[in-house]
């Protein structure tokens, strides 16, 4: 089990938090992404604003898309971002 977890943020999630990346103590394998977001939202207004509307958030654990209720397990990197808007034109 890693003792640190790297969090990476994109698009307006990053803008609201004010940083693209941060490291936190690993919350444990059983902790879900949602539960970790709850903890982080309590810690700063920026995190609270970024994580307020969970329906607009998506996540990836070690670069694989997962639902927000997924336990973090042994992942080293958790990414939080809005639904993607790539592909072709707007």
């Amino acid at each position, binding site marked *: 089990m890693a003792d640190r977890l790297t969090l990476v943020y*994109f698009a307006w999630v990053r803008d609201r938090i004010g940083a693209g990346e941060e490291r936190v103590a690993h919350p444990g394998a059983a902790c879900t992404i949602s539960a970790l977001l709850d903890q982080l939202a309590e810690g700063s207004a920026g995190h609270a604003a970024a994580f307020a509307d969970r329906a607009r958030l998506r996540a990836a654990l070690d670069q694989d898309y997962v639902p927000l209720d997924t336990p973090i397990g042994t992942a080293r990197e958790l990414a939080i971002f809005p639904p993607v*808007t790539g592909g072709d034109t707007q």
Partner: protein
Amino acid sequence: MIRVTVQAQGFDPAAELAALEGLAGAGGIASFTGIVRADGGISALHLDHYPAMTLAQVEKVAAQAAARWPLLGLTIIHRFGTLAVGERIVFVGTASVGRTPALEACAFLIDWLKVAAPFWKREVHADGSGDWVEAKAADDAQAARWS
């Protein structure tokens, strides 16, 4: 031949098409090029992406197309960074013996890139202000029709 690149710099569709046309046995080559539009008076689009994940996701979509259709070649180029109106964002090119696999795979790839590749667009106005583009439910629906 599968060629996938995620890059900041521009690209030349003509060179990509020529490479696909030159593949032995190729009878049909399909392509799609996406261009930045001046919607809402924007002057540019900024494309954020998740570098550690982007190439892997685009390669995954490419592998799905290659498994589903008998393709001789498949090229995907997706740009990131700040792109002015009129610049190319994305290119998908496919080659097959007959016309149908190339045409279907090209449409499949562009639909799936929109929902699977970790890119986020921000519309940039001339004064530097801008908003992140919201995802459209229509894109999920369009990609899902291939399932």
